[in-house]
């Protein structure tokens, strides 16, 4: 007897349909599975055999062959247990085969026949819908995730007998699940940040133009606090963005038991010991890394100078292309990685330079400290701000009438709208991404302004690259001001945010 069921294999954050064929025929008793299987998929044999026995089905003593096709993609993960079990039941004639053609199956099976949750349900169900299926049988714990895809009938099963009941008799009782208490993580709001006017302003500028940002300051000055506030001023995500982000989290098994899509923008702050693969994604079958988990949100690298240089170098390509391409033997995987980089560092080893009463570092060690950063990476950071510790009277002022994140966000949304309008019909989305060759079009300067930039160029010993960065940031500041033309005051403010000087890298007299 032959049967065929459909399931899906996770490839990066997308899914590809896989069909599982089962055949039971006469011959020497044998249980064989073929089709480019990873070790955990081969083990399904033992799990499914025992699970079927414990659920009251007996495998015939015959020659059993299972084939996974297409045979050229590697199948890994635990989601193949349920399709294997159902394919066997269908081949044994225990369940009806009629409806199996438009049902997607995915789930892990335990020895007692229970169906356990798996990673990546969301992309699998999306792939099923694209392939014209209308029903999916998924583990109970993946119910919410699967239900996010509109137009799919989700059948959440707790064990094999429930699956059999649905397939044979269409019995399915949607279990009423107690609505979970929404886990409200600690939310950070700019109203918590007292004083620090320059810092507040530069965060707003950075997000308004989606510029990458570097905060430099002594320990305890509020760099991390400010970074954690930044997601709260990012504009809300569109449904499309939410779906994309949810897919990434689903593929990583980090979707959790939330109801609905991921609504809040991510804030990822990997520890500085993170490996290259941890940051970009990797593995034999690559999984998304921190930069993809920060897609649409903030990647915060605290203690930037402590990161390994090779790890940071890897960021250069995704910062430009907004995605990361990973090549492995099993294929090329492309993960979205459109994030705003916010980095923080101390100005020297002890952190207090240039306060000579506290800092014991020599000038050479200060330079060494900064030189741990790679210049190409620093070149990709548009805004750099010094953060200093607050004087006591500002700290103790209690909650002053600080602006809230919601108020700032309103303005940010407006500035983003201006940019959408300006860049309509181009590849550019934000001011930070204006290529150098079209800068004169979008950041045209009047005669007074260009005279000012000329004097600035000489006084600050700018490079072409830093000159362009000032223009881009000035464009954002002008947008925030509601001005079409960039004025001298915008350029002046922008030049205050320019990156760490070259004096740290180049020999000077």
């Amino acid at each position, binding site marked *: 007897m032959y049967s065929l069921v459909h399931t899906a294999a996770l490839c990066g954050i997308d899914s590809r349909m896989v069909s599982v064929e089962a055949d039971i025929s006469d011959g020497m008793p044998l249980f064989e599975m073929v089709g480019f299987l990873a070790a955990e998929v081969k083990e399904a044999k033992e799990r499914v055999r025992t699970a079927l026995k414990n659920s009251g089905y007996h495998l015939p003593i015959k020659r059993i062959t299972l084939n996974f096709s297409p045979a050229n993609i590697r199948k890994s993960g635990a989601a193949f247990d349920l399709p294997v079990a159902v394919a066997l039941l269908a081949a044994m004639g225990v369940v009806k085969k009629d409806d199996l053609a438009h049902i997607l199956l995915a789930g892990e099976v335990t020895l007692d026949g229970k169906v356990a949750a798996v990673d990546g349900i969301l992309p699998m169900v999306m792939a099923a819908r694209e392939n014209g299926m209308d029903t999916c049988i998924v583990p109970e714990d993946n119910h919410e995730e699967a239900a996010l895809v509109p137009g799919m009938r989700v059948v959440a099963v707790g064990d094999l007998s429930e699956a059999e009941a649905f397939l044979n008799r269409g019995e399915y009782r949607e279990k009423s699940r107690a609505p979970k208490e929404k886990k409200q993580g600690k939310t950070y709001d700019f109203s918590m940040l007292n004083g620090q*006017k320059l810092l507040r302003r530069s965060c707003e500028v950075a997000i308004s133009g989606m510029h990458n940002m570097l905060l430099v300051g002594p320990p305890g000055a509020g760099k991390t606090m400010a970074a954690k506030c930044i997601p709260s001023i990012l504009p809300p995500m569109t449904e499309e963005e939410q779906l994309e982000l949810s897919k990434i989290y689903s593929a990583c098994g980090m979707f959790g038991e939330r109801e609905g899509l991921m609504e809040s923008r991510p804030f990822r702050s990997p520890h500085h010991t993170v490996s290259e693969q941890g940051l970009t994604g990797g593995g034999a079958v690559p999984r998304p890394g921190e930069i993809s988990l920060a897609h649409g949100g903030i990647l915060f690298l605290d203690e930037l100078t402590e990161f390994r240089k090779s790890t940071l170098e890897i960021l250069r390509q995704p910062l430009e292309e907004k995605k990361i391409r990973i090549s492995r033997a099993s294929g090329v995987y492309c993960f979205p990685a459109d994030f705003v980089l916010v980095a923080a560092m101390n100005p020297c080893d002890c952190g207090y330079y240039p306060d000579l009463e506290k800092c014991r570092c020599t*000038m050479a060690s200060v330079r060494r400290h900064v030189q741990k950063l790679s210049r190409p990476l620093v070149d990709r950071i548009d805004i750099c701000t*010094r953060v200093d510790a607050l004087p006591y009277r500002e700290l103790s002022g209690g909650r002053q009438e600080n602006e809230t994140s919601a108020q700032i966000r309103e303005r940010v949304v407006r500035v983003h709208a201006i940019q959408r309008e300006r860049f309509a019909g181009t590849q550019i989305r934000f001011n930070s991404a204006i290529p150098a060759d079209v800068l004169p079009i979008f950041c045209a300067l009047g005669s007074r302004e260009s005279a000012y930039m000329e004097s600035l160029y000489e006084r600050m010993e700018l490079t072409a690259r830093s000159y362009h960065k000032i223009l881009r940031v000035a464009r954002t500041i002008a947008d925030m001001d509601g001005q079409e033309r960039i004025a001298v005051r915008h350029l*002046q403010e922008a030049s205050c945010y320019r990156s760490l000087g070259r004096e740290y890298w180049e020999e*000077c007299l």
Partner: protein
Amino acid sequence: MKYRYWLMNVKGISETDKRALSERLGGAREVFFAAEQRIGQIIGAKKAGEVVRQRGAWELDGAYRRFAEAGVTMVTQEDRSYPLLLRRIHQAPYGLYVSGTLPPEDADLTAIVGARRCSPYGRQMAEELAGALAGRGFSVVSGMARGIDGAAHRGCLAGGALTVAVLGCGVDVCYPKEHEKLCRVIRNNGCILSEFPPGTPPLAYHFPQRNRIISGMASRVIVVEAQEKSGSLITAELALEQGRDVYAVPGRVTDPLSAGCNRLIWQGAEPILSVEEFIGGLCGDRGKNAAKEAAKQEKIFLEKEETLVYSCFDLYPKSVDSVCEETGMDLLRLLSVIMDLCDKGFLREYVKNQYVRCR
């Protein structure tokens, strides 16, 4: 020359002994060929044996040739170009290695010394003093260390005068490393001196020793920023012993970096109240008036807001936020004013978003 080179490198006898030998016997060559007994009459029998033993201990011809080919020259007390003031100090080195051109005999040198770890205030004062001295034709001698020393050399070079750096290592060794460029510029606009042979590494005990040369070459010593118990104070003490005028730049009472200077003033060193006044004092009244005139002419008219912001800054770095707090100005307006002041050369960004006065 070869014999002078040999005498410079003789170990185990003091600089005073070498000088006595060359003076009494009529030159290094005569010392080399003199009888042990004759040498013994001058510096004692024990040391004479030491000298004689070193006559054949190393191959002089080859060593001297290698030295001469390295591009380093030397000056000994037998030469007329040996710095005049230095000749008179106690334990004046018999010879010095020179890279560059020695200042003319009648050059009036001023030593500027101070801490390696210095504040922007100290750096600025050192640069201004050196620049003003250079403008009046004085050369500056210092130790090419980090901080004040380097700033003094830079100021002097910027003022267009020759400068002299005295090192605690060989003249061909650049220490500290970050002064490599400065080192090159000094070689072409003055000279680098050392009593240690080329190739000598910078060892800690060399530095107090070379300090006597810095103060010895100069007719006055200015201490810019010094902590208590620092090398700069040793230099000041040596300067007093050598009969040089000692000046000190006063600082805040609470600032440990200025504690040494303030103590020097308490002990009787002359405080430098302003660069103009100091230069005026050196050059007589005529100079004083001229300096005042110059200061008057340089005054640029500042707008009201600019004056307010400028008055908030001093020579210690200050952040934008604290000035914003002090003046109560709008942040964006303040940034704009600060940038204007930077443009006009009144302020300078010391580190990211922290500014100091330039004048």
